[in-house]
Protein backbone atom coordinates (compact mmCIF):
# COMPACT_ATOMS: atom_id res chain seq x y z
CA UNK A 1 0.00 0.00 0.00
CA UNK A 2 2.86 2.35 0.78
CA UNK A 3 5.44 2.54 -2.01
CA UNK A 4 9.09 3.42 -1.54
CA UNK A 5 8.56 7.14 -2.15
CA UNK A 6 5.65 7.21 0.28
CA UNK A 7 7.80 5.57 2.90
CA UNK A 8 10.63 8.02 2.40
CA UNK A 9 8.27 11.00 2.61
CA UNK A 10 6.53 9.63 5.69
CA UNK A 11 9.85 9.13 7.35
CA UNK A 12 10.94 12.68 6.62
CA UNK A 13 7.76 14.56 7.49
CA UNK A 14 6.43 12.40 10.29
CA UNK A 15 9.43 10.37 11.52
CA UNK A 16 7.45 7.29 10.64
CA UNK A 17 8.79 3.89 9.71
CA UNK A 18 5.75 2.35 8.07
CA UNK A 19 2.35 2.83 9.67
CA UNK A 20 2.18 4.71 12.95
CA UNK A 21 0.90 3.55 16.31
CA UNK A 22 -2.31 5.02 17.62
CA UNK A 23 -4.79 6.96 15.53
CA UNK A 24 -3.82 8.08 12.06
CA UNK A 25 -5.13 9.30 8.76
CA UNK A 26 -2.89 9.20 5.72
CA UNK A 27 -3.96 11.17 2.69
CA UNK A 28 -2.32 10.53 -0.64
CA UNK A 29 -2.96 12.52 -3.83
CA UNK A 30 -6.19 13.91 -2.48
CA UNK A 31 -7.61 10.58 -1.32
CA UNK A 32 -7.70 8.61 1.88
CA UNK A 33 -4.98 5.97 1.94
CA UNK A 34 -5.25 4.60 5.45
CA UNK A 35 -6.98 5.38 8.68
CA UNK A 36 -7.06 4.08 12.21
CA UNK A 37 -9.07 5.44 15.12
CA UNK A 38 -8.84 4.72 18.83
CA UNK A 39 -11.30 4.49 21.69
CA UNK A 40 -10.71 8.14 22.47
CA UNK A 41 -9.91 9.60 19.09
CA UNK A 42 -12.47 9.76 16.30
CA UNK A 43 -11.64 10.64 12.71
CA UNK A 44 -14.42 11.37 10.23
CA UNK A 45 -14.28 12.48 6.62
CA UNK A 46 -16.01 15.60 5.50
CA UNK A 47 -18.22 15.46 2.42
CA UNK A 48 -16.40 15.04 -0.90
CA UNK A 49 -13.30 14.03 0.94
CA UNK A 50 -12.52 17.70 1.51
CA UNK A 51 -10.86 16.87 4.78
CA UNK A 52 -11.35 15.33 8.17
CA UNK A 53 -12.65 16.12 11.61
CA UNK A 54 -10.58 14.73 14.45
CA UNK A 55 -12.39 14.63 17.76
CA UNK A 56 -10.50 13.93 20.92
CA UNK A 57 -12.54 12.86 23.92
CA UNK A 58 -12.21 14.95 27.07
CA UNK A 59 -9.57 13.56 29.40
CA UNK A 60 -7.63 11.64 26.74
CA UNK A 61 -4.00 11.64 27.78
CA UNK A 62 -0.75 10.49 26.20
CA UNK A 63 -2.23 9.70 22.82
CA UNK A 64 -1.16 10.84 19.42
CA UNK A 65 -2.68 11.33 15.98
CA UNK A 66 -0.69 11.22 12.78
CA UNK A 67 -2.22 12.94 9.77
CA UNK A 68 0.42 13.10 7.05
CA UNK A 69 -0.31 14.08 3.46
CA UNK A 70 1.63 12.71 0.52
CA UNK A 71 1.61 14.11 -2.99
CA UNK A 72 3.20 12.34 -5.89
CA UNK A 73 0.86 13.04 -8.75
CA UNK A 74 2.02 15.67 -11.18
CA UNK A 75 -0.33 18.56 -11.82
CA UNK A 76 -2.29 17.98 -8.64
CA UNK A 77 -3.14 20.79 -6.30
CA UNK A 78 -4.60 19.19 -3.22
CA UNK A 79 -6.75 21.39 -1.02
CA UNK A 80 -7.72 20.13 2.39
CA UNK A 81 -9.64 21.41 5.37
CA UNK A 82 -9.12 19.65 8.70
CA UNK A 83 -10.72 20.33 12.03
CA UNK A 84 -9.48 19.26 15.42
CA UNK A 85 -11.69 19.31 18.45
CA UNK A 86 -9.59 18.72 21.50
CA UNK A 87 -11.60 17.82 24.58
CA UNK A 88 -11.17 19.32 28.02
CA UNK A 89 -8.20 18.24 30.09
CA UNK A 90 -6.81 16.00 27.39
CA UNK A 91 -3.11 15.87 26.58
CA UNK A 92 -2.31 14.82 23.01
CA UNK A 93 0.18 15.18 20.19
CA UNK A 94 -0.87 15.79 16.61
CA UNK A 95 1.68 15.13 13.92
CA UNK A 96 0.86 16.60 10.56
CA UNK A 97 3.14 17.14 7.64
CA UNK A 98 3.19 17.19 3.93
CA UNK A 99 5.67 15.52 1.65
CA UNK A 100 5.74 16.17 -2.06
CA UNK A 101 7.51 13.90 -4.47
CA UNK A 102 7.72 15.60 -7.79
CA UNK A 103 8.69 13.47 -10.74
CA UNK A 104 7.74 15.65 -13.69
CA UNK A 105 7.55 19.18 -15.05
CA UNK A 106 4.03 19.92 -13.81
CA UNK A 107 3.48 21.83 -10.59
CA UNK A 108 2.29 20.08 -7.46
CA UNK A 109 0.88 21.75 -4.43
CA UNK A 110 -0.93 21.37 -1.18
CA UNK A 111 -3.10 23.86 0.59
CA UNK A 112 -4.26 22.96 4.03
CA UNK A 113 -6.37 24.78 6.53
CA UNK A 114 -6.16 23.32 10.00
CA UNK A 115 -8.60 24.57 12.57
CA UNK A 116 -8.18 23.77 16.24
CA UNK A 117 -10.54 24.13 19.13
CA UNK A 118 -8.50 23.47 22.23
CA UNK A 119 -10.79 22.78 25.18
CA UNK A 120 -10.52 23.99 28.75
CA UNK A 121 -7.25 22.95 30.38
CA UNK A 122 -6.40 20.76 27.42
CA UNK A 123 -2.83 20.39 26.26
CA UNK A 124 -1.87 19.85 22.67
CA UNK A 125 1.37 19.64 20.79
CA UNK A 126 1.07 20.14 17.06
CA UNK A 127 4.03 19.23 14.87
CA UNK A 128 4.03 20.01 11.19
CA UNK A 129 6.84 19.39 8.74
CA UNK A 130 6.94 20.28 5.10
CA UNK A 131 9.27 18.81 2.59
CA UNK A 132 9.51 18.34 -1.14
CA UNK A 133 11.81 16.19 -3.20
CA UNK A 134 12.11 14.40 -6.50
CA UNK A 135 13.87 14.83 -9.83
CA UNK A 136 10.98 16.70 -11.49
CA UNK A 137 11.23 20.41 -12.16
CA UNK A 138 7.59 21.21 -11.57
CA UNK A 139 7.00 23.91 -9.01
CA UNK A 140 6.20 22.58 -5.56
CA UNK A 141 4.10 24.83 -3.43
CA UNK A 142 2.73 24.48 0.07
CA UNK A 143 0.30 26.92 1.57
CA UNK A 144 -0.65 25.85 5.07
CA UNK A 145 -2.86 27.81 7.39
CA UNK A 146 -3.65 27.18 11.00
CA UNK A 147 -6.37 28.73 13.07
CA UNK A 148 -6.50 28.01 16.74
CA UNK A 149 -8.88 28.96 19.50
CA UNK A 150 -7.69 28.27 23.02
CA UNK A 151 -10.25 27.97 25.79
CA UNK A 152 -9.54 28.89 29.39
CA UNK A 153 -6.33 27.35 30.72
CA UNK A 154 -5.53 25.56 27.45
CA UNK A 155 -1.91 25.00 26.53
CA UNK A 156 -0.75 24.57 22.93
CA UNK A 157 2.62 24.17 21.32
CA UNK A 158 3.07 24.40 17.58
CA UNK A 159 6.23 23.39 15.80
CA UNK A 160 6.15 24.30 12.15
CA UNK A 161 9.06 23.29 9.99
CA UNK A 162 9.82 23.58 6.32
CA UNK A 163 12.93 21.56 5.72
CA UNK A 164 13.64 21.94 2.06
CA UNK A 165 12.68 21.59 -1.54
CA UNK A 166 9.56 23.76 -1.36
CA UNK A 167 9.58 26.40 -4.10
CA UNK A 168 6.81 28.53 -2.79
CA UNK A 169 5.20 28.67 0.63
CA UNK A 170 2.56 30.97 1.93
CA UNK A 171 1.86 30.29 5.53
CA UNK A 172 -0.63 31.86 7.84
CA UNK A 173 -1.13 31.24 11.53
CA UNK A 174 -3.90 32.75 13.55
CA UNK A 175 -4.82 32.18 17.16
CA UNK A 176 -7.13 33.58 19.77
CA UNK A 177 -6.12 32.98 23.39
CA UNK A 178 -8.65 32.66 26.18
CA UNK A 179 -8.03 33.40 29.88
CA UNK A 180 -4.93 31.76 31.34
CA UNK A 181 -4.12 29.96 28.13
CA UNK A 182 -0.62 29.54 26.74
CA UNK A 183 0.52 29.30 23.13
CA UNK A 184 4.09 28.61 22.03
CA UNK A 185 4.81 28.71 18.32
CA UNK A 186 8.15 27.82 16.80
CA UNK A 187 8.62 28.16 13.08
CA UNK A 188 11.73 27.01 11.25
CA UNK A 189 12.17 27.58 7.58
CA UNK A 190 15.09 27.01 5.28
CA UNK A 191 15.00 28.21 1.68
CA UNK A 192 17.55 27.96 -1.09
CA UNK A 193 17.87 28.47 -4.84
CA UNK A 194 15.11 30.85 -5.88
CA UNK A 195 12.54 29.65 -3.34
CA UNK A 196 10.07 32.01 -1.74
CA UNK A 197 8.43 31.72 1.66
CA UNK A 198 6.08 34.06 3.42
CA UNK A 199 4.74 33.60 6.90
CA UNK A 200 1.97 35.70 8.39
CA UNK A 201 1.13 35.33 12.05
CA UNK A 202 -1.53 36.99 14.05
CA UNK A 203 -2.10 36.11 17.68
CA UNK A 204 -4.83 37.75 19.70
CA UNK A 205 -4.46 37.61 23.47
CA UNK A 206 -8.03 37.94 24.51
CA UNK A 207 -8.19 36.49 28.01
CA UNK A 208 -6.58 37.74 31.19
CA UNK A 209 -3.24 36.09 32.02
CA UNK A 210 -2.89 34.55 28.62
CA UNK A 211 0.65 34.12 27.31
CA UNK A 212 2.03 33.77 23.81
CA UNK A 213 5.56 33.20 22.59
CA UNK A 214 6.30 33.19 18.89
CA UNK A 215 9.75 32.13 17.74
CA UNK A 216 10.85 32.19 14.14
CA UNK A 217 14.15 30.90 12.79
CA UNK A 218 14.90 31.44 9.13
CA UNK A 219 17.85 30.39 7.04
CA UNK A 220 17.83 32.09 3.67
CA UNK A 221 20.34 30.75 1.18
CA UNK A 222 21.34 31.56 -2.39
CA UNK A 223 18.80 33.86 -4.07
CA UNK A 224 15.84 32.83 -1.96
CA UNK A 225 13.51 35.22 -0.19
CA UNK A 226 11.64 34.87 3.09
CA UNK A 227 9.31 37.32 4.67
CA UNK A 228 7.96 37.13 8.16
CA UNK A 229 5.09 39.12 9.56
CA UNK A 230 3.93 38.75 13.12
CA UNK A 231 1.33 40.64 15.08
CA UNK A 232 0.56 40.28 18.75
CA UNK A 233 -2.64 41.93 19.79
CA UNK A 234 -3.36 42.28 23.49
CA UNK A 235 -6.92 42.75 24.62
CA UNK A 236 -6.45 41.81 28.27
CA UNK A 237 -3.84 41.61 30.99
CA UNK A 238 -1.39 39.31 29.25
CA UNK A 239 2.15 38.62 28.18
CA UNK A 240 3.39 38.18 24.63
CA UNK A 241 6.80 37.87 23.04
CA UNK A 242 8.04 37.60 19.46
CA UNK A 243 11.55 36.44 18.67
CA UNK A 244 12.55 36.27 15.04
CA UNK A 245 16.03 35.61 13.73
CA UNK A 246 17.06 35.28 10.14
CA UNK A 247 20.41 34.15 8.83
CA UNK A 248 21.34 35.28 5.34
CA UNK A 249 23.69 33.18 3.26
CA UNK A 250 24.62 34.26 -0.25
CA UNK A 251 22.11 36.69 -1.74
CA UNK A 252 19.19 35.71 0.47
CA UNK A 253 16.73 38.47 1.22
CA UNK A 254 14.43 38.92 4.15
CA UNK A 255 11.83 41.25 5.44
CA UNK A 256 10.79 40.84 9.06
CA UNK A 257 8.00 42.90 10.52
CA UNK A 258 7.04 42.25 14.11
CA UNK A 259 4.14 44.32 15.30
CA UNK A 260 2.80 44.79 18.82
CA UNK A 261 -0.63 46.16 19.57
CA UNK A 262 -1.82 46.77 23.10
CA UNK A 263 -5.46 47.55 23.78
CA UNK A 264 -5.24 46.96 27.49
CA UNK A 265 -3.28 48.91 30.13
CA UNK A 266 -1.80 45.77 31.66
CA UNK A 267 -0.62 44.23 28.43
CA UNK A 268 3.06 43.36 28.29
CA UNK A 269 4.41 42.78 24.81
CA UNK A 270 8.02 42.49 23.68
CA UNK A 271 9.91 41.54 20.57
CA UNK A 272 13.43 40.81 19.43
CA UNK A 273 14.32 40.59 15.78
CA UNK A 274 17.58 40.13 13.98
CA UNK A 275 18.69 39.60 10.41
CA UNK A 276 22.28 39.00 9.46
CA UNK A 277 25.03 36.76 8.26
CA UNK A 278 26.25 33.91 10.42
CA UNK A 279 28.02 35.53 13.36
CA UNK A 280 31.75 35.63 12.82
CA UNK A 281 32.63 34.79 16.40
CA UNK A 282 30.59 31.57 16.13
CA UNK A 283 32.43 30.56 12.96
CA UNK A 284 35.84 31.37 14.47
CA UNK A 285 35.04 29.35 17.56
CA UNK A 286 34.02 26.22 15.66
CA UNK A 287 36.97 26.52 13.30
CA UNK A 288 39.29 26.83 16.28
CA UNK A 289 37.86 23.49 17.39
CA UNK A 290 39.03 21.97 14.12
CA UNK A 291 36.01 22.32 11.82
CA UNK A 292 36.47 23.63 8.29
CA UNK A 293 34.61 26.79 7.28
CA UNK A 294 31.86 24.78 5.53
CA UNK A 295 31.50 22.35 8.41
CA UNK A 296 31.21 25.26 10.82
CA UNK A 297 28.50 26.93 8.73
CA UNK A 298 26.52 23.69 8.58
CA UNK A 299 26.84 23.06 12.26
CA UNK A 300 25.64 26.55 13.15
CA UNK A 301 22.63 26.29 10.85
CA UNK A 302 21.79 22.84 12.16
CA UNK A 303 21.73 24.19 15.72
CA UNK A 304 19.85 27.31 14.75
CA UNK A 305 17.08 25.26 13.16
CA UNK A 306 16.94 22.68 15.92
Amino acid sequence: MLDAFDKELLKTVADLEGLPKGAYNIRKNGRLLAREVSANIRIESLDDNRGIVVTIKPGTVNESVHIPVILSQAGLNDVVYNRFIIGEKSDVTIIAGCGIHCGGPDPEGHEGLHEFEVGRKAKVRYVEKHYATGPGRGKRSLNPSTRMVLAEGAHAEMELTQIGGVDEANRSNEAVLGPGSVLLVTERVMTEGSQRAVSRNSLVLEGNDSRANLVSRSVIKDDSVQDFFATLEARARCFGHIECDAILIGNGRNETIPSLKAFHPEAELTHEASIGKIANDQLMKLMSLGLSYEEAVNRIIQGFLR
Partner: protein
Amino acid sequence: MLELKNIVFSVEDGPQENGGNGGGIRRIIDGIDYAFRKGKFYAITGPNGSGKTTLAKLIMGINPVTEGSILFGGKNITGYSITDRAKAGISYSFQQPARFKGITFRDLLSIASGTEEEMQLLALLRRVGICSLSFLDKPVDSKLSGGEIKKIELATTIARNPKVAIYDEPDTGIDLWTIGPMVNLLKREQAEHGTTTLVVSHNRAFLEVADVVLIINGGRFVYEGDLKGALPLLSDMSICNYKACVRIDDVGCFR
Protein backbone atom coordinates in the same frame (compact mmCIF):
# COMPACT_ATOMS: atom_id res chain seq x y z
CA MET B 1 58.32 25.11 19.62
CA LEU B 2 56.22 28.18 18.84
CA GLU B 3 58.27 30.95 17.34
CA LEU B 4 57.09 34.45 16.55
CA LYS B 5 59.44 36.02 14.04
CA ASN B 6 59.15 39.75 14.24
CA ILE B 7 55.39 39.77 13.83
CA VAL B 8 53.45 42.95 13.21
CA PHE B 9 49.72 43.53 13.07
CA SER B 10 48.68 46.91 11.83
CA VAL B 11 45.36 48.45 10.97
CA GLU B 12 44.39 51.57 9.11
CA ASP B 13 43.87 54.29 11.58
CA GLY B 14 40.57 56.11 11.82
CA PRO B 15 40.11 59.79 11.07
CA GLN B 16 41.52 62.43 13.41
CA GLU B 17 38.15 63.25 14.97
CA ASN B 18 38.02 59.74 16.39
CA GLY B 19 41.41 60.04 17.94
CA GLY B 20 43.31 58.58 15.05
CA ASN B 21 46.16 60.31 13.36
CA GLY B 22 44.32 60.74 10.11
CA GLY B 23 44.54 57.89 7.67
CA GLY B 24 47.78 56.58 9.10
CA ILE B 25 48.69 53.07 10.07
CA ARG B 26 48.48 51.86 13.66
CA ARG B 27 50.72 49.00 14.69
CA ILE B 28 48.77 47.11 17.33
CA ILE B 29 51.41 44.41 17.49
CA ASP B 30 54.62 46.23 16.87
CA GLY B 31 57.27 43.64 16.12
CA ILE B 32 57.26 40.70 18.52
CA ASP B 33 60.13 38.29 18.27
CA TYR B 34 59.83 35.45 20.71
CA ALA B 35 60.21 31.70 21.04
CA PHE B 36 57.91 29.85 23.42
CA ARG B 37 59.51 26.70 24.80
CA LYS B 38 57.81 23.35 24.87
CA GLY B 39 55.91 22.48 28.03
CA LYS B 40 56.43 25.82 29.75
CA PHE B 41 53.77 27.91 31.44
CA TYR B 42 53.67 31.55 30.32
CA ALA B 43 51.66 34.31 31.92
CA ILE B 44 51.16 37.25 29.58
CA THR B 45 50.06 40.45 31.19
CA GLY B 46 49.91 44.16 30.43
CA PRO B 47 47.48 47.07 30.43
CA ASN B 48 44.10 47.04 28.73
CA GLY B 49 44.48 47.63 25.04
CA SER B 50 48.16 46.69 24.99
CA GLY B 51 47.65 43.94 22.40
CA LYS B 52 47.32 40.69 24.38
CA THR B 53 44.18 39.44 22.67
CA THR B 54 45.45 40.61 19.30
CA LEU B 55 48.61 38.58 19.80
CA ALA B 56 46.63 35.48 20.80
CA LYS B 57 44.42 35.84 17.73
CA LEU B 58 47.46 36.14 15.47
CA ILE B 59 48.78 32.87 16.84
CA MET B 60 45.41 31.13 16.34
CA GLY B 61 45.14 32.59 12.82
CA ILE B 62 41.99 34.55 13.52
CA ASN B 63 43.75 37.62 12.19
CA PRO B 64 46.56 37.37 9.63
CA VAL B 65 49.91 38.91 10.53
CA THR B 66 50.77 42.02 8.56
CA GLU B 67 54.49 41.28 8.70
CA GLY B 68 56.65 38.53 10.06
CA SER B 69 56.08 34.83 10.37
CA ILE B 70 55.00 32.18 12.84
CA LEU B 71 56.76 28.83 13.18
CA PHE B 72 55.24 25.89 14.97
CA GLY B 73 57.21 22.73 15.58
CA GLY B 74 59.69 23.94 12.96
CA LYS B 75 56.97 24.43 10.31
CA ASN B 76 56.07 27.82 8.95
CA ILE B 77 52.35 28.12 9.72
CA THR B 78 51.96 31.79 8.78
CA GLY B 79 49.68 30.87 5.88
CA TYR B 80 47.64 28.27 7.81
CA SER B 81 43.91 28.80 8.33
CA ILE B 82 42.35 28.66 11.79
CA THR B 83 41.26 25.09 11.06
CA ASP B 84 44.76 24.03 10.01
CA ARG B 85 46.29 25.52 13.13
CA ALA B 86 43.70 23.82 15.31
CA LYS B 87 44.53 20.52 13.63
CA ALA B 88 48.23 21.17 14.10
CA GLY B 89 47.62 21.42 17.86
CA ILE B 90 46.99 25.05 18.74
CA SER B 91 43.93 25.83 20.81
CA TYR B 92 42.53 29.15 22.00
CA SER B 93 40.05 30.10 24.71
CA PHE B 94 38.45 33.36 23.64
CA GLN B 95 38.33 36.32 25.98
CA GLN B 96 34.77 36.86 24.84
CA PRO B 97 33.42 33.42 23.95
CA ALA B 98 30.85 33.08 21.18
CA ARG B 99 27.24 32.43 22.14
CA PHE B 100 25.15 30.26 19.85
CA LYS B 101 21.56 29.35 19.26
CA GLY B 102 20.67 25.68 19.57
CA ILE B 103 24.20 24.46 20.31
CA THR B 104 24.91 22.87 23.67
CA PHE B 105 28.05 22.38 25.72
CA ARG B 106 27.84 18.70 24.73
CA ASP B 107 27.93 19.67 21.04
CA LEU B 108 31.02 21.85 21.51
CA LEU B 109 32.75 19.24 23.61
CA SER B 110 32.01 16.56 20.98
CA ILE B 111 33.34 18.73 18.19
CA ALA B 112 36.43 19.61 20.21
CA SER B 113 37.22 16.04 21.27
CA GLY B 114 35.98 14.30 18.12
CA THR B 115 33.79 11.88 20.07
CA GLU B 116 30.14 11.65 21.04
CA GLU B 117 30.77 8.76 23.44
CA GLU B 118 29.05 9.50 26.72
CA MET B 119 31.79 7.88 28.79
CA GLN B 120 34.49 9.90 27.12
CA LEU B 121 32.56 13.15 27.50
CA LEU B 122 32.02 12.41 31.18
CA ALA B 123 35.71 11.68 31.55
CA LEU B 124 36.42 15.08 30.00
CA LEU B 125 34.08 16.76 32.47
CA ARG B 126 35.97 15.12 35.30
CA ARG B 127 39.26 16.16 33.79
CA VAL B 128 38.24 19.82 33.71
CA GLY B 129 36.62 19.62 37.14
CA ILE B 130 32.98 20.14 36.18
CA CYS B 131 30.98 18.03 38.61
CA SER B 132 27.47 18.81 37.46
CA LEU B 133 26.51 16.42 34.67
CA SER B 134 23.43 18.43 33.78
CA PHE B 135 25.82 21.15 32.65
CA LEU B 136 26.54 19.04 29.57
CA ASP B 137 23.17 19.77 28.01
CA LYS B 138 23.19 23.49 28.67
CA PRO B 139 22.71 25.54 25.54
CA VAL B 140 25.72 27.78 24.94
CA ASP B 141 23.54 30.81 24.38
CA SER B 142 23.04 34.30 25.70
CA LYS B 143 21.42 32.99 28.86
CA LEU B 144 24.64 31.54 30.27
CA SER B 145 26.30 33.59 32.97
CA GLY B 146 29.68 35.16 32.33
CA GLY B 147 31.44 32.65 34.57
CA GLU B 148 29.63 29.64 33.13
CA ILE B 149 30.57 30.44 29.57
CA LYS B 150 34.22 30.90 30.54
CA LYS B 151 34.26 27.45 32.12
CA ILE B 152 32.80 25.97 28.95
CA GLU B 153 35.34 27.85 26.85
CA LEU B 154 38.17 26.49 28.93
CA ALA B 155 36.82 22.95 28.79
CA THR B 156 36.59 22.99 24.99
CA THR B 157 40.20 24.15 24.76
CA ILE B 158 41.42 21.34 27.00
CA ALA B 159 39.25 18.82 25.12
CA ARG B 160 41.36 19.45 22.03
CA ASN B 161 44.40 17.96 23.80
CA PRO B 162 46.42 20.82 22.39
CA LYS B 163 50.17 21.09 22.14
CA VAL B 164 49.81 24.83 22.75
CA ALA B 165 46.89 26.12 24.77
CA ILE B 166 46.19 29.84 24.90
CA TYR B 167 43.76 31.07 27.53
CA ASP B 168 42.63 34.68 27.19
CA GLU B 169 41.69 35.92 30.66
CA PRO B 170 40.17 32.59 31.71
CA ASP B 171 39.36 33.98 35.16
CA THR B 172 36.98 36.75 34.05
CA GLY B 173 33.71 36.28 35.90
CA ILE B 174 34.99 33.19 37.70
CA ASP B 175 34.10 33.11 41.37
CA LEU B 176 36.71 33.42 44.07
CA TRP B 177 36.41 29.74 44.99
CA THR B 178 37.11 28.53 41.48
CA ILE B 179 40.23 30.56 40.63
CA GLY B 180 42.50 28.33 42.73
CA PRO B 181 41.18 25.09 41.19
CA MET B 182 41.42 26.66 37.74
CA VAL B 183 45.07 27.51 38.25
CA ASN B 184 45.69 23.96 39.50
CA LEU B 185 43.88 22.53 36.49
CA LEU B 186 46.04 24.40 34.01
CA LYS B 187 49.18 23.43 35.94
CA ARG B 188 48.06 19.80 35.95
CA GLU B 189 47.42 19.90 32.20
CA GLN B 190 50.92 21.31 31.77
CA ALA B 191 52.46 18.62 33.97
CA GLU B 192 50.50 15.60 32.71
CA HIS B 193 50.26 16.41 29.02
CA GLY B 194 53.29 18.63 28.56
CA THR B 195 51.00 21.37 27.26
CA THR B 196 52.75 24.58 26.39
CA THR B 197 50.49 26.99 28.21
CA LEU B 198 49.95 30.69 27.51
CA VAL B 199 47.65 32.44 29.95
CA VAL B 200 46.68 36.04 29.34
CA SER B 201 45.72 37.42 32.72
CA HIS B 202 45.87 40.27 35.17
CA ASN B 203 45.40 37.85 38.02
CA ARG B 204 48.30 37.38 40.36
CA ALA B 205 47.34 33.72 40.90
CA PHE B 206 48.40 32.92 37.33
CA LEU B 207 51.50 35.12 37.43
CA GLU B 208 52.66 33.30 40.56
CA VAL B 209 52.61 29.82 39.04
CA ALA B 210 54.05 30.80 35.66
CA ASP B 211 57.48 29.63 34.57
CA VAL B 212 57.83 32.87 32.65
CA VAL B 213 56.04 36.19 33.00
CA LEU B 214 55.76 38.31 29.87
CA ILE B 215 54.63 41.90 29.94
CA ILE B 216 53.25 43.43 26.81
CA ASN B 217 52.83 47.13 26.34
CA GLY B 218 52.11 49.11 23.20
CA GLY B 219 52.21 45.91 21.18
CA ARG B 220 55.67 44.83 22.31
CA PHE B 221 57.09 42.55 24.93
CA VAL B 222 58.73 44.82 27.46
CA TYR B 223 59.61 42.19 30.04
CA GLU B 224 60.44 38.52 30.22
CA GLY B 225 61.34 36.89 33.50
CA ASP B 226 60.02 35.89 36.88
CA LEU B 227 57.23 37.56 38.80
CA LYS B 228 59.56 39.25 41.24
CA GLY B 229 61.33 41.14 38.50
CA ALA B 230 58.00 42.02 36.89
CA LEU B 231 56.49 43.63 39.95
CA PRO B 232 58.18 47.04 39.81
CA LEU B 233 57.21 47.39 36.16
CA LEU B 234 53.64 46.32 36.84
CA SER B 235 53.19 48.80 39.67
CA ASP B 236 54.65 51.50 37.45
CA MET B 237 52.09 50.72 34.81
CA SER B 238 49.27 50.83 37.27
CA ILE B 239 49.91 54.50 37.88
CA CYS B 240 50.16 55.06 34.18
CA ASN B 241 53.47 56.75 33.91
CA TYR B 242 55.03 53.99 31.95
CA LYS B 243 54.14 55.31 28.58
CA ALA B 244 53.12 58.76 27.53
CA CYS B 245 49.56 59.23 26.39
CA VAL B 246 49.72 59.24 22.65
CA ARG B 247 46.11 58.87 21.77
CA ILE B 248 42.96 60.32 23.12
CA ASP B 249 41.44 56.82 23.41
CA ASP B 250 44.35 55.22 25.21
CA VAL B 251 42.50 53.39 27.92
CA GLY B 252 45.51 53.38 30.19
CA CYS B 253 45.54 57.14 30.48
CA PHE B 254 42.28 57.34 32.32
CA ARG B 255 43.34 55.14 35.14
